[in-house]
């Protein structure tokens, strides 16, 4: 059942992506409503798929990249729907839904259960969940940064097109960027701590300086600097947008690298 709902979700997110991208170009209310509807139904299907899978397999297998990415995409849509509900910001969907789709397709491409490494699945689940929540924060910050740069460019070049009229005010995007990092950073911190704990259980050392661990720490230091820079020396607006885009690109590259190298479970 989980597999079927997973496929339904993917189809709906795909359709929603197409229609959300079309919405960027044409000023149509009907299009945004259709996109939103498909996203919401897709989200419901995704929720069922996740629950069905958890009921079926919890406690017997450790979370792999498939689960992590699927959960990541679910959280992204959840955040989008929450922001949409509060601020009526349809255009956010044109950026977040494609990202969720990419993540879901990547999940589908990966095996569902990763090779078993150790019996400490429970802490591993906590670690993966927290890290992914942190990553969701960075992903939203990335999207906000991207939208910020586009709007900034449109204002500077005085091109008042359809996209200009749909994108929200610059300071709103900057605020969304800040809030996402403020939420994402502590979650990543906790994710790293639980990761170190589970590594200690399974391998006997908190930190073995393998590539994922190293990159996780680099990411942590990077976002720490971004956050600190914003609060102290005014790294906001355009600079914050650039930094969060670079940061997220780093996160994605790390994930790709780790997956390609064929490491089993995340740590």
């Amino acid at each position, binding site marked *: 059942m989980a597999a079927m709902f997973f496929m339904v979700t993917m189809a709906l997110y795909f359709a929603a992506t197409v229609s959300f991208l079309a919405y960027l170009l044409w000023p149509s209310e009907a299009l945004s409503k259709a996109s939103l509807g498909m996203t919401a139904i897709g989200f419901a299907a995704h929720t069922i798929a996740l629950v069905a899978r958890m009921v079926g397999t919890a406690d017997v297998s450790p979370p792999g990249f498939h689960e992590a990415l699927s959960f990541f995409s679910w959280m992204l849509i959840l955040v989008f729907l929450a922001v949409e509900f509060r601020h009526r910001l349809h255009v956010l969907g044109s950026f977040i839904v494609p990202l969720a789709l990419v993540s879901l397709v990547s999940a589908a491409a990966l095996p569902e259960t990763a090779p078993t490494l150790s019996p400490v699945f429970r802490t591993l689940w906590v670690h993966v969940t927290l890290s992914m929540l942190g990553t969701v924060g960075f992903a939203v910050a990335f999207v906000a940064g991207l939208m910020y740069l586009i*709007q900034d460019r449109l*204002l*500077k070049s*005085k091109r*008042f097109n359809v996209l*200009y009229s749909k*994108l*929200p*005010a*610059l*300071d*709103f995007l900057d*605020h969304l960027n800040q809030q996402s990092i403020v939420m994402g950073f502590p979650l990543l911190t906790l994710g790293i701590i639980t990761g170190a704990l589970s590594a200690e259980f399974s391998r006997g050392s908190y930190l073995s300086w393998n590539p994922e661990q190293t990159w996780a720490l680099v990411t942590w230091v990077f976002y720490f600097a971004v956050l600190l820079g914003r609060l102290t*020396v*005014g*790294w*906001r*607006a*355009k*600079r914050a947008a650039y930094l969060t885009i670079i940061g997220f690109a780093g996160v994605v590259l790390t994930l790709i690298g780790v997956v390609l190298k064929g490491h089993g479970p995340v740590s």
Partner: protein
Amino acid sequence: MHIVVVGLSHKTAPVEIREKLAIPESRMNEALTRLCSYQGVREGILLSTCNRVEVYAVVDEIEAGYGRIQEFLADAHLSLSSEQLTPHLYWHQGDRAISHLFRVASSLDSMIVGESQILGQIKDAFEVALTHKSTGIILNKVVKKAISVAKRVRTETKIAEMAVSVSYAAVELAKKIFSDLSEKTVLLVGAGEMAKLAARHFIASGVRHVRVTTRNPQHGMELADRFGGTAVPFEQFREDMASADIVLVSTGAAHYLVSEDDVQRSVKQRMNRPMFLIDISVPRNIDPAVRHVDNAFLFDIDDLKARVEQNRGGRLLEAEKAEQMVVDEVGIVRQWLQSLEVTPTIMALRTKADEIKRAEVEKTLGRLANLSESERELVETMASSIVNKLIHNTMVTLKAEVNSSDGVAFVEAARRFFSLGDPAGSTVNGSAVESHIQSREEATPKAGAKTPDR
């Protein structure tokens, strides 16, 4: 009974004529009394703004009604004759009159399409008419509908969102930089007319902190007072610029007052919080090189004008959508008005009664299988005469009251008592009967005082 409108607007009459006809608020009551005293005028409402003077009325006969209203308008000013007015007037009746009112309310007929003032003016005019009880079932319904159509046009099209004046275009742009203007500070440099207008638009859009600087300190203080802001010495304003989120510059200076460095410094002091600079001066007062400063957004008069031009085009598109809405809504009102006519009501009543009779007779005869032919006829005759007697009085009353002032109320009452179907969604604003009963109750104490003889 016919709805008519006679009037003139900025499209048909020059201001010299419009201002003569304009009815000041203080004389509105007297004017309404005069309008309703004309024979054959059953309901009336007056709309008088600086761009139009219009009389909407329900009259017994169209041609006579037109004449009376034209007479009424000409009487408004001693130096005007009815003939002088004729070339400037327009006359519409029925659907076209209703459609005209809907278009006016939706600001489709305004000098600046999409402006919002006219709706308020129609509401005020309606208020006065209600107090004066010069409107009845028909105009109450139609004007209320016009107000709801206008609201629908405003929410469902973007007609009102598009800035079509340079000063307002600045506000619209600011909203793409700052989501909440109420916490922002505007610095007004110089006292150019356009800049003052823009400052007023900003205040109307929620800005609460205004700082003013002009070369003449006295003048600056006065302006600051007028905008509820504070004055800043002219020599200092460049240092002070960092405290402003929006800088509006419009002075007569022939050189740049604000340099790239000034802005660069301000943005730095603001810790990269965005800054919005508007240069409405010609020649320009802000160095165009400011465009290269990150997080500073400079717009000059040409940029604003280009934005306005773009919006004008957009408004035309939105206006087409709005026109379609008006057409649809006029259709709904037309159906409602038709339902108020007597002949179709009587026919509907007759049909309904016959249907009930036939159904009941068939049912009864079906059970009494062993009746003779004459007995069957008897049953049928009995059913017919019961039905006829029951509806007889209603039909006679409807025919008798058709020309009375309560005619439409009787029609609608009959439609509701006999469930004759109500095609026109009279549920939208309460039914005619309800509003009529209400207005009658209110009017009772002095009903005889003003009702003209008919």
